[in-house]
C-alpha cells in the first residue's frame, strides 16, 4: 500500500517536472511552471520521507535544515550579475551529491553489483566528481578568484585525454570485477583531477558553453544515480537536466561558430593581443553633449549591450536613457546576442532586473533585418558580437560567428572604456568605420552624462511621429 502511494507520488512529480519546463516556454506562464516544479518536488520529498526504508531521522533533518539555511541566501541574496557563479556552484553541489551517493552505494553493495549497475555507478561517480571540481573552478573563474585566462601548456590535450581514459579504464576493470575495492578511490581521485584540468584551460569567453556542458554532466550523473537506485523519477529528472544542458551548449557553440571539440581542446582566447600597433589607427570620438544631439534627432535607436555594460553596473542608467528617448518619441529596442553575458540568457535577466520590458528585447534573428532601417545603434560594452570581421575576414579567429549587423545602421555610437580588444583578442573594424563614433569612458558615467545633456534640450515635437 505504502509502496504504491510512493510510486504514484514519484510519477506525479515526474509529470510536474515536465509541465514545469513546458510552461517555461513563455514569460507569462513561466512562474506557474516554477510553482508546478515546487509542488512536484515537495510531493516527492514527502513521499520519500514516509517510505519504509528510512529508519533514522535525526541526521536527515539536520542536513535538510542546514541545506535550507544555505539555500535561502543563495537564492535570495545573490546579485543578478553573480548568477553564473551561483549556477556553477549549484552544478557542483548537485554533482557532489550524486558522486557521494554513488560512492556509498558501491561500498554497501560491492560484492553483488551486476555489470550494468556497475557501469551506471561508475559513470555516476566519474561524471559526479569531475563536474564537482570542474564547476568549482568555473565558479572561481567567474567570481574572479581563479585566473580568468586559460592555463595552457604543450601536450595538454594528450595529458587530459590520458587522465580521462585512465578513469574509464579503471571503471571498466571494476565492471569486470567489482570486488577490487582498491581501484575505487583512484577513480574518484582521477575524476576530481580531470574536472580541474578540463576547466582550467578554458577562457572567459567560453564560460557560457562550459557552464551548459557542466549542467549536462550534472544531469547525466543524476540520471545514472537513478539507474543505480532503480528510481525512475531520478532518471527522468536527470535526463531532462542533461538534455537541457546539452541543448544550451549547442546553442552557445553555434552562437560562437565553434565546435565542442574546439571549445574543450582549442584554447581559444588564449593569445594575448591586447597590445599592438594596429590600435593606433585613428577613430572618430564624440562627447556626451554631441551624443545627446544625435540621439535626440534620431527616430529609431537600437541598444546593443554586452557584458561590459553589466560589469560597469550601467544597465539602470541605460534603461533610464531609453526611457528619456522613448518619451521624446524615439523608438528604442535592445539587441541581445546569444552569448552576451556570462551564461545563456544572462543579459536578458540583467536588463529585466533594470526594469526593461521583455518585449523590447530582441534576439539576433529578430533584430538583424532591422538594422538597415535604424538611425543609431548604441553599442555599450559589447565588442566581438558586433565585429564585422566575423562576416568578411576569413583569417579572423571569430570568422563565421553570427554577429549583430550593426554596421548596416545609418550610424553607430560605441560606448567603450578604451580601445582594448574584446574577449577573443581581436581588433574590431567597426570602430574605424566612417559612420562609427566612439564615446570613451565608463559606461555608467557617460550614459549618465548623456541623460543630463538630453534633459537640457528643449522638448521635441512628437506630433508628426
Amino acid at each position: 500500500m505504502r509502496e504504491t502511494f510512493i510510486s504514484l507520488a514519484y510519477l506525479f512529480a515526474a509529470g510536474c517536472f515536465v509541465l514545469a519546463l513546458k510552461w517555461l516556454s513563455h514569460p507569462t506562464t513561466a512562474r506557474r511552471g516554477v510553482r508546478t516544479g515546487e509542488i512536484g518536488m515537495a510531493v516527492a520529498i514527502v513521499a520519500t520521507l514516509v517510505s519504509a526504508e528510512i529508519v533514522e531521522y535525526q541526521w536527515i533533518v539536520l542536513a535538510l535544515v542546514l541545506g535550507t539555511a544555505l539555500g535561502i541566501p543563495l537564492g535570495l541574496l545573490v546579485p543578478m550579475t553573480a548568477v553564473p557563479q551561483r549556477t556553477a556552484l549549484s552544478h557542483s553541489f548537485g554533482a557532489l551529491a550524486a558522486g557521494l551517493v554513488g560512492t556509498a552505494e558501491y561500498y554497501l553493495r560491492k560484492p553483488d553489483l551486476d555489470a550494468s549497475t556497475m557501469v551506471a555507478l561508475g559513470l555516476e561517480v566519474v561524471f559526479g566528481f569531475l563536474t564537482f571540481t570542474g564547476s568549482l573552478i568555473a565558479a572561481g573563474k567567474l567570481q574572479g578568484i581563479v585566473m580568468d585566462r586559460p592555463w595552457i601548456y604543450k601536450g595538454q590535450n594528450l595529458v587530459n585525454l590520458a587522465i580521462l581514459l585512465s578513469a574509464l579504464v579503471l571503471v571498466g576493470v571494476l565492471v569486470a570485477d567489482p570486488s577490487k575495492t582498491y581501484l575505487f578511490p583512484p577513480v574518484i581521485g582521477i575524476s576530481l583531477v580531470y574536472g580541474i584540468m578540463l576547466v582550467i584551460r578554458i577562457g572567459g569567453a567560453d564560460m557560457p558553453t562550459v557552464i551548459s556542458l557542466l549542467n549536462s554532466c550534472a544531469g547525466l550523473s543524476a540520471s545514472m544515480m537513478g539507474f543505480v537506485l532503480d528510481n525512475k523519477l531520478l532518471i527522468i529528472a536527470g535526463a531532462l537536466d542533461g538534455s537541457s544542458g546539452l541543448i544550451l551548449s549547442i546553442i552557445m557553440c553555434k552562437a560562437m561558430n565553434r565546435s565542442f571539440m574546439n571549445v574543450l581542446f582549442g584554447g581559444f582566447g588564449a593569445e594575448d593581443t591586447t597590445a599592438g600597433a594596429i590600435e593606433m589607427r585613428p577613430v572618430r570620438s564624440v562627447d556626451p553633449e554631441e551624443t545627446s544631439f544625435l540621439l535626440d534627432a534620431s527616430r529609431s535607436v537600437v541598444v546593443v549591450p554586452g557584458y561590459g555594460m553589466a560589469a560597469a553596473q550601467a544597465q539602470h542608467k541605460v534603461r533610464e536613457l531609453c526611457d528619456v528617448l522613448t518619451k521624446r518619441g524615439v523608438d528604442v529596442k535592445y539587441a541581445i546576442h546569444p552569448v552576451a553575458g556570462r551564461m545563456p540568457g544572462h543579459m536578458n535577466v540583467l536588463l529585466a532586473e533594470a526594469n526593461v520590458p521583455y518585449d523590447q528585447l530582441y534576439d539576433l534573428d529578430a533584430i538583424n533585418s532591422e538594422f538597415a532601417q535604424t538611425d543609431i545603434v548604441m553599442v555599450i560594452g559589447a565588442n566581438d558580437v558586433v565585429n564585422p570581421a566575423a562576416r568578411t575576414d576569413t583569417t579572423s579567429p571569430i570568422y563565421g560567428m553570427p554577429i549583430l549587423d550593426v554596421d548596416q545602421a545609418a550610424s553607430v555610437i560605441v560606448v567603450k572604456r578604451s580601445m582594448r580588444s574584446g574577449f577573443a583578442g581581436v581588433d574590431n573594424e567597426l570602430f574605424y568605420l566612417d559612420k562609427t563614433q566612439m564615446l570613451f569612458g565608463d559606461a555608467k558615467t557617460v550614459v549618465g552624462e548623456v541623460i543630463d545633456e538630453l534633459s537640457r534640450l528643449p522638448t521635441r515635437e512628437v506630433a508628426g511621429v
Partner: protein
Amino acid sequence: MDEILEASLYIFVLASFLGYAVITRVPGLLHTPLMSLTNALSAISLVGSLILAGAGEGTMATVLGSIAVFCAMTNVVSGFLITDRMLKMFKRREAPKKTEAPTEGVNAR
C-alpha cells in the same frame, strides 16, 4: 538484458527526447531561468540521498548520505527561489508612458 534495466533505458531515452522537445521551445530570453530551474529539478537526487542517509546502513552511508542531502537540499531551495526571483522581473511594456511604474499587480500570483 534484465527487464528493470530495459525499462530504465527506455525511460532514459524517452525522457531525453521529451526534454529535447520541451526545452527547444524555451526562448533565449529565459535561458538563465531555464538553467536554474532544471538545476533545482535535478536536485531530486535528494530522494536517493535521503534513503541512503536514513536507512541506518552504517556510519559511512549516513555521513555521505547526509552530506548529499545537504547539497541537494541547498540546490532545491536556492534553485526554485532564484528562478522565481528572476521570472518576477520579466515584465511586459505597460501603457507606453509609464515604463517605470511598478507592475507587481500583474505578475503577483
